[in-house]
């Protein structure tokens, strides 16, 4: 093995408790610093309040979806339906509210219910009908896509102006939407690292049969994480409706939230096989992707180049994890 990967892996490993998400946050700090320098050389200013708020708001939609995806992946499953759940929730919120400020709570409730239902269907198809998670959630994604594209061409319904506070307002320098993401992350972190349910998610993702033999009921855990993933995607949909003023069938798929959330989860150090990784790692990955976006926007770079660089970052990072794993085994 040549010297560089060894040094890097040593850095990633050095004295950290296993399962820490610190390395990925260090990577984020590094990416941020490099971005600031590069933009500075390009004659701009990266570290401005406006730009930071911009990066934060970019992170929210993907961040919300990624929290749910991380729960699902930690349980050893996968959710490919999230992008369309985002659209369904955005449309539901916008149609139920219909511009009426009095119906805001109702609209949010209906959107979350729709997301939870989609997650429930995912979970029941996987556990009850024993369909592979990849296929089950892909199938649900197609069903939702067909339904919303048949019913709507573009924007439908409207959210009241007051509701756009969520998408645009800033409180004490912090965007409201970032507070929303922070709340969801805090709740999910507590759930995963402090409650029995979270312990059982790790157990089922690590070895479902061992968990079953220990008295855990894996099916309940799997249905649970899929419902939570549906709820997270729906929250993201509600945020996007607030941002855009209305829901539309393309808001989820155009954001690419299905594959991007999986990429962020893996980039964040979570094993796709399940059971291994922390919740905060994937959030750092979302932030890294947002910083990259911001740099490319500054230089008004070719969007295809942007995608290409994303690919390199994801493959490179996961290869580093592989090296780290190999180092630990030897």
């Amino acid at each position: 093995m040549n010297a560089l990967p060894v040094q890097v892996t040593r850095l990633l490993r050095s004295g950290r408790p296993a399962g820490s998400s610190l390395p990925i946050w260090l990577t984020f700090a590094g990416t941020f610093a490099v971005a600031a320098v590069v933009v500075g050389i390009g004659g701009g200013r990266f570290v401005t309040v406006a730009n930071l708020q911009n990066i934060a708001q970019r992170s929210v939609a993907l961040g919300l979806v990624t929290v749910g995806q991380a729960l699902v992946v930690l349980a050893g499953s996968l959710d490919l339906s999230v992008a369309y759940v985002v659209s369904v929730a955005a449309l539901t919120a916008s149609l139920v509210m219909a511009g009426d400020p009095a119906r805001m709570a109702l609209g949010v409730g209906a959107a979350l219910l729709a997301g939870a239902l989609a997650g429930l269907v995912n979970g029941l198809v996987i556990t009850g009908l024993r369909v592979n998670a990849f296929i089950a959630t892909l199938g649900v994604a197609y069903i939702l896509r067909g339904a919303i594209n048949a019913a709507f061409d573009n924007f439908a319904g409207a959210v009241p102006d007051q509701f756009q506070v969520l998408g645009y307002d800033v409180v004490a320098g912090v965007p409201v939407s970032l507070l929303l993401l922070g709340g969801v992350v805090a709740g999910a972190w507590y759930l995963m690292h402090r409650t029995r349910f979270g312990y059982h998610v790790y157990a089922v993702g690590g070895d479902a049969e061992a968990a079953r033999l220990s008295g855990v009921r894996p099916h309940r855990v799997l249905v649970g994480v899929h419902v939570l993933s549906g709820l997270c995607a729906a929250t993201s949909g509600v945020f996007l409706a607030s941002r855009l003023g209305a829901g539309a069938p393309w808001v989820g798929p155009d954001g690419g939230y299905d594959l991007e959330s999986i990429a962020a989860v893996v980039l964040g150090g979570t094993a796709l096989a399940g059971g291994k990784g922390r919740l905060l790692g994937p959030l750092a990955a979302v932030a890294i992707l947002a910083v990259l976006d911001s740099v490319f926007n500054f230089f008004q770079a070719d969007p295809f180049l942007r995608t290409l660089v994303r690919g390199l970052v994801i493959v490179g990072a996961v290869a580093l994890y592989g090296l780290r794993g190999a180092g630990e085994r030897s």
Partner: protein
Amino acid sequence: MAASPAAPTSPAAPVLSMHRITKRFFGTTVLRDVSLTCWRGEVHAIVGANGAGKSTLMKVLGGVYPPDGGELVLDGRPVRLRDPHQALAHGISLIHQEFTLLPERSVAENILLGREPRRRLAVDRRAMTEQARKLLTDLDAQAIPTQRLVRRLTVAQRQTVEIAKALSYRPRILVMDEPTAALTPGEVAVLFRRVRQLVARGLAVLYISHRLAEVFELADRVTVLRDGRHVDTREVSAVTATELVQLMVGRELADRESRPPVDVPEPGSVRLAVHGGRGRNLHGVDIEVREREIVGVGGLDGSGRSDLVRAVFGVVPLASGTVEVDGVRRRIRSPRAAIRAGLGYVTADRKTEGLVLPLPAADNALLTVRAVGRRPARAAAAALSRLASRVGLATVLLRRETRVLSGGSQQKVVLMKWLAAGARVYLFDEPTRGVDVGAKAGIHELIRELADGGAAILMISSELPELIALSHRIVVMHAGTVAGELPAGAREADIMLLATGQGAA
């Protein structure tokens, strides 16, 4: 602390009775009308040869497999156990043969998995650590840090954690399936002392072991299973090791003549030699196989038999020791290196390890020669029909998808693969498992022909008649070493005595 049963029950009723339990898998009956009773304060050993149904019976008890027939009675009340969760709730705790620990979670999290102590909504981590430490201290294992990840523990430590976990359910019946396989003698002594304490407090222990010495040391009664049936239950004080082995093997089987080879060939030169082989489950193995010789390897599951051939073939390379093929020392670090050295390995599980099932049989037969190419693949392909006739496979079957062939035909395809590759040393692991009687005779004949043609053959078999019928010599393994060697025509009982660690050798 772990084992006081909830309510004192009438001492006249056994804590457990299993009545006429039957279990089938895919049409094969693996347990037939097995009955068993167990009393409070009793260690009840269950013994039997491989495939006798011991582990399956215990998994029925643990709710892992629902039975197809029969009844479970706990403290006089019939119960149905649909999943492990229910069995645990009824106070039945299993220590499985395979580990059920999560490597990426801590010791404490593993021990209390599914019953994490809570304070309001959250898991009470301090209480969890405390409980785990207490359970480990009870096992004299306070040295195991409760916060360490299980993957950082030694095998023996994992076994101890597994036991602590089983006891944390406060069971009234504890099932231990080969619990000492990974332990050192000192650790076994600690475990036995602990089991005696628990039993003295009224726990019932069902104890599965291949090691008869443990049965005599620990158990009060012993039940023998054979071929999925209950053979006998005896007081341990009123039975000898030889009697137990007789019961395990079966009188009719023991008496049946399994025609050992009539003429043992003149020993040729040594083709395969392993010296001081150490590695996974291997603690110093020396073995030699000569030209034209069939060496049978006896032993029970977990004795290291399969680990030996897998090590020789480079699947899990030896940690230390030497392997010589035809007098040349070889460093075999991968199957490819083994094939290059002239070895062929007929695996026990041909469906996952021996064949690529969706491919046509012909492609499977040529897989190795195409990949490793000790001789031109084209020549082998041209000779395919000759190879097929040599193993007795109809040539029309060569174009069929391998999945649809019978077990016997599939095994013939595996043999063709090694013939095509030009192997000179053959490692067989259970060569006739799952093969019908006719094909079995054919495979036996083929193994003999290979040997007559100059090949050296090392053959593992759990079927004693097969071992006796084919082997020119029989090496018996126990606990990762060679327990002894027997000449052609050895008796089944002698093989079994060596395999259970009772041999004089």
